């Protein structure tokens, strides 16, 4: 029996998420069709989602192909780290260090980036963001946060 990889994983994701939401919905008041409680609609949706997930897997049985292909692991790690770094730094360190961190992390997500280019990009992008968001649009985000003012 051959399974279509893409179909199998897509179906599995829907089923898992359906189960998770369904379990959450069961923990809430369901109510009746007349007066639906907070759990009613989510429970219906999760049942549909699980059914669709199963159907997708069944549909994929016997269909060859559907291999997932290459995954840019390096890019994935750096790109996903960037917003997290921004989130951790923004309140304490302010806009300038946070943007610089994002630019630097993102720069290294590409295999083609060289150190000098990355640094130049970081400086250029940071200056640009200061000009646009602080000077131009006047967003209320401090350039340097409390952790950097001595």
């Amino acid at each position, binding site marked *: 029996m051959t399974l279509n990889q893409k179909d199998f994983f897509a179906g599995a994701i*829907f089923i898992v998420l359906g189960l998770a939401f369904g379990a959450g919905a069961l923990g809430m008041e369901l109510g009746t069709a007349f007066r639906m409680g907070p759990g009613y609609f989510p429970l219906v949706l999760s049942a549909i*989602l699980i059914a669709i997930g199963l159907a997708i897997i069944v549909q994929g049985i016997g269909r060859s192909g559907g291999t997932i292909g290459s995954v840019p692991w390096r890019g994935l790690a750096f790109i996903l780290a960037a*917003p997290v770094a921004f989130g951790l730094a923004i309140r304490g360190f302010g806009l300038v260090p946070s943007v610089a961190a994002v630019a630097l992390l993102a720069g290294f997500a590409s295999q083609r980036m060289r150190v000098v280019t990355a640094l130049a990009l970081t400086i250029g992008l940071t200056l640009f963001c200061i000009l646009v968001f602080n000077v131009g649009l006047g967003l209320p985000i401090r350039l340097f946060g409390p952790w950097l003012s001595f």
Partner: protein
Amino acid sequence: MELLANLGLGLETALTPYNILYCFIGVLLGTLIGVLPGIGPTATIAMLLPITFTLSPVSALIMLAGIYYGAQYGGSTTAILINLPGESSSAVTAIDGYKMARQGRAGPALATAAIGSFFAGTVATLLIALFAPPLTEVALRFGPAEYFSLMVLGLISSVALAHGSVLKAIGMIVLGLMLGLVGTDIYTGTPRFTFGRLELADGLNFVAVAVGVFGLAEILRNLENEKDREVTVQRITNLMPTRADLKAIAQPILRGTLLGSLLGILPGGGHILSSFASYTVEKKLSKTPERFGQGAIEGVAGPESANNAGAQTSFIPMLTLGIPANPVMALMIGAMIIQGITPGPNVATDEPALFWGIIASMWIGNLLLVLLNLPLVGLWVRLLTIPYYLLFPAILAFSCIGVYSINSNAFDLYALTVFGLLGYVLVKLDCEPAPLLLGFVLGPMLEEHLRRAMIISRGDATVFLTRPISLTLLVMAAIVLVIVFLPSIAKKREEVFQEE
């Protein structure tokens, strides 16, 4: 004439220097991202959404709308010149447009695209002005049952128009609906799926979800195979189409406009389908179908008009019913909510200047696009030589600042990361993100109208079938669903989307 008075009010609003400026910025940005592959209007508008908070509602919406139709326009420029459609809706234009460019007729091809788009944009703007008010009247008589059925129809048709597997598209919608329910239940105040986090009490941040599944996921996809873009452009010598060209394109432009206007109203990316449909129609009607694919000017004129008309008329359901036809319209609704405007049929009566101002600005924007694009073609193409590894760090930085500035909340950035990953994984598995975002926006509305309808009918579910408008809408939804699953249609549908 009420129509003229309304359009007059719209022009008055749209023609203030301030609003012209924002319209210009919008179409300029739109053209830019339309030219650049790897970033589309959805991600851009999502990124810029928080910034529009500092603008007046009219200027904000005029600018965002400009980005949207500007992108359709920019996408066709690169499709013609270097066979690289910046947006999926210009994929068809590349077929004959690029052939024309290779034959040294890039100028007429670009001019045809411009003329077609402008004509279509003008007609579609008039159609919106004509049909929006009566539709609004109808919508005002809608009860919860009608709204529920209408949203079901919208969601189902967005499935029909999504790429790839129908089941996966339905799955994405349901997942989106569910994600939309995260937050406090409006009837009982019960927190749902919040994991006790206060940040989730108001629901998941819409911008974080949109930027994640469209922006971040797209960057990740582009990193899969990094390669240099080779940009060799033929010199553009003569821009003007010949008299014979003009004769050849007149009818395709008319037909494309009509087709695009009709399909654009349908939910779920009608403008993409309309350019394919128009190409097929022109090829079928042509006396010399063998010229298609070899640089037939009709193959540029029809689809270009159709996709611009479709992009324009997709505003109709958003403006009249408050229901988005595609993810971009969902973002426009988000922008209205940020500005404190409740989208729906009341917008036309409560905020006539806003309503008509947006409509009038579309025509002005189309005019600006013609003026902007033809002389600046060389500049746009040169932009393509910017390597991607310099581009995406900027996209990422803007995304982070944009997402953060909505609530000044670091939690939203973690949500952005999670949805970026989820979006990428799902796209890898051939699950399109557009239905998910539509579901996400409609989720709370759908539930609210369902619950309200059931309370009014005292728990009698047949209410959706006994009210005539609601029944009609549901029957239409059922027909669409049946059609999509019919084996012969399903096969045809796969072929259409394969061509992209």
